[in-house]
């Protein structure tokens, strides 16, 4: 018989307690229009109390297959919470004024988060194929709900429907800002990292300056760049005609680049350090030129470390690019700041969720690339 692990049940207990607590918060808010605060609407508290109590009881009494039961309930909650919210919203809207908005409440978000974390915890240790399949199925079902229109009653979806074109544009703009920054950071940062590594000056002036830049708040840096960039555009009108100015994409990319350089430089130097000294010595002694050494030995051996660095930079840049909207660089940050300005919570939420999903997706892509290179080595 397997000895019960005393701590294995702890995350389940904590998460189901959070779920129970969340059942007391508003599941939905019903507001007369998109700007006013709504009234709490909690249509089925007993369902939640029942579900979370079951999960908790399974963990406490270690019933047979308790892990499977908890995982199933968690999976059902991840998929079912949006579905129920969508159906509730449709029900409310039938008899309501056209401007009425049904917003997702704190209860929904807390429970969904608790369910997702519970699923993550209960799936751990299973085969990776099973884990991926469970998540992909959940994701597909949620997206499917959106496509067939079940979720259309929710304010978040209505906001998106109202802003489809600007949203697509902002998403593309956000990706463009981030991609350009990433490419430039690699082009500028990798040679700088090589130089730092060659000089053995990881504590030198360059790294010091880059580390200091990290401590400047992003908003302040964007603001500080307006002056110099506006001056540049005035001094060279050719630059100005290319869209180069105190505000817009150019200073935004520059600021994002300044933040991205430190990790790229650090990870490049660390990647070069990961190449065994004797392999380098042998390569030189056998007659490889510096370029051959770099391309055939240092790059393939240091690449995984550099890739890990780019992953950090990519996620960081996607997050920081939100602030760039404040100096007119566009991107998903526009939704966040416009929403804050108008007091439209759903607009803020739309922008934030999109940035979050984007960061997670890019992180997954880099994880996949890393797994590929590691299998290769």
């Amino acid at each position, binding site marked *: 018989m397997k000895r019960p692990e005393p701590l294995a049940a702890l995350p389940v207990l904590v998460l189901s307690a959070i779920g129970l607590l969340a059942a007391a918060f508003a599941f939905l808010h019903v507001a007369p229009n998109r700007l006013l605060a709504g009234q709490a609407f909690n249509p089925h508290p007993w369902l939640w109390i029942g579900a979370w109590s079951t999960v908790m009881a399974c963990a406490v009494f270690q019933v047979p297959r308790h892990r499977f039961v908890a995982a199933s309930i968690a999976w059902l909650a991840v998929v079912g919470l949006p579905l129920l919210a969508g159906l509730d919203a449709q029900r409310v809207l039938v008899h309501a004024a056209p401007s009425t908005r049904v917003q997702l409440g704190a209860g929904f978000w807390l429970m969904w988060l608790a369910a997702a974390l519970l699923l993550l915890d209960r799936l751990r240790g299973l085969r990776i194929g099973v884990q991926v399949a469970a998540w992909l199925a959940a994701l597909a079902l949620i997206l499917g709900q959106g496509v067939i229109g079940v979720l259309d009653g929710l304010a978040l979806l209505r906001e998106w429907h109202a802003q489809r074109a600007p949203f697509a544009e902002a998403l593309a703009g956000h990706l463009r800002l981030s991609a350009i920054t990433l490419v430039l950071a690699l082009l500028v940062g990798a040679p700088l990292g090589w130089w730092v590594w060659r000089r053995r000056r990881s504590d030198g002036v360059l790294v010091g300056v880059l580390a200091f830049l990290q401590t400047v708040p992003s908003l302040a840096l964007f603001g500080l760049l307006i002056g110099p960039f506006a001056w540049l555009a005035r001094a060279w009108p050719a630059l100005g005609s290319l869209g180069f100015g105190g505000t817009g994409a150019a200073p935004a990319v520059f600021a994002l680049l300044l933040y991205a350089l430190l990790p790229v430089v650090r990870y490049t130097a660390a990647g070069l350090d990961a190449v065994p000294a*004797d392999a380098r010595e042998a390569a030189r*002694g*056998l*007659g490889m030129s510096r370029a*051959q050494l770099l391309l055939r*030995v240092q790059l393939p*051996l240091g690449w995984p470390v550099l890739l890990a660095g780019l992953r950090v930079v990519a996620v960081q840049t996607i997050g920081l690019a939100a602030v760039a909207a404040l100096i007119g660089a566009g991107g998903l940050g526009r939704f966040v700041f416009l929403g804050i300005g108008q007091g439209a919570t759903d607009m803020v939420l739309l922008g934030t969720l999109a940035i979050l999903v984007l960061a997670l997706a890019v992180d997954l892509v880099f994880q996949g690339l890393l797994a590929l290179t590691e299998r290769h080595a």
Partner: protein
Amino acid sequence: MIEFEHVCKRFGDHVVIDDLSLRIADGEFFVLVGPSGSGKSTLLRTVNRLIHVDAGTVRVDGEDVATRDVETLRRGIGYAIQSVGLFPHRTVAENIATVPRLLHWPEDAVRARVAELIDMLRLDEPDIADRYPHTLSGGQQQRVGVARALAARPRIVLMDEPFGALDPLTRESLQTSLKAIQRETATTILFVTHDMDEAFGLGDRVGLMLDGKLIQVGAPLAFLRHPADERVRDFVGGTRARLRELAVRTVRDSMRGGEHAEGEPVDAAASLQDALGAMLAQGRDRLPVRDGIEHVGAIVLADLVLRP
């Protein structure tokens, strides 16, 4: 042919090579021996210009290395080091093929050469060519390192304590392989070690280096019998020098031709040390000697003790 002419090298205030001259002939196996810090590795690395000399000239085949294109020079000289330095992301075959590929050999010539070297260095485990270095034992890794150094058939090979990190059995088997290959291909080898037994076992000539100077150069036996001074005598081991001598001399030189003896025969090409070992193992003071399958004479304990 490698020539050093009044070579000097200093690191800061420390003189590492002090006005050193030496000439190594074509096809010679020359071993530089000396304690750590004597400058022997530094001297070796001046040949392929991993270290630049401060004064004097180093010539390879009559040409000053300082005037040659450094990559071309290095590709023409084999190089093996103690830490091996195999490329961990490349297979055994790709590692061995490094220099031929740098020299743009045609692909089938590269493949044939790799197969030949795998055979020559007795890397005869199945599919070893497609394995990665971390799956090999230390001895196999160094065999690959030596194969890589020999791959482009260089006329000169530099070896910097290549067997220093191996266990005695593996080291001995690699020494035997290397010596056989060197004889067969008439490659000029400059070999650095701090191990006297290795130096005397491998070298046609040995050079003893102390504090950046060559104290004595000569054949192993000359070294043992006529040390130039006290320091050389100390370094070759005082009274143990006589034991080392047994390892250098062969049974053929000391046997009594035509005589007979009882016991398991020893080979005429074996060292006197092996013969002494066989005597101790069999509890006899004379043993028969054979050359191949033919009986040629006997080896006697008293003759081992006598000075020739």
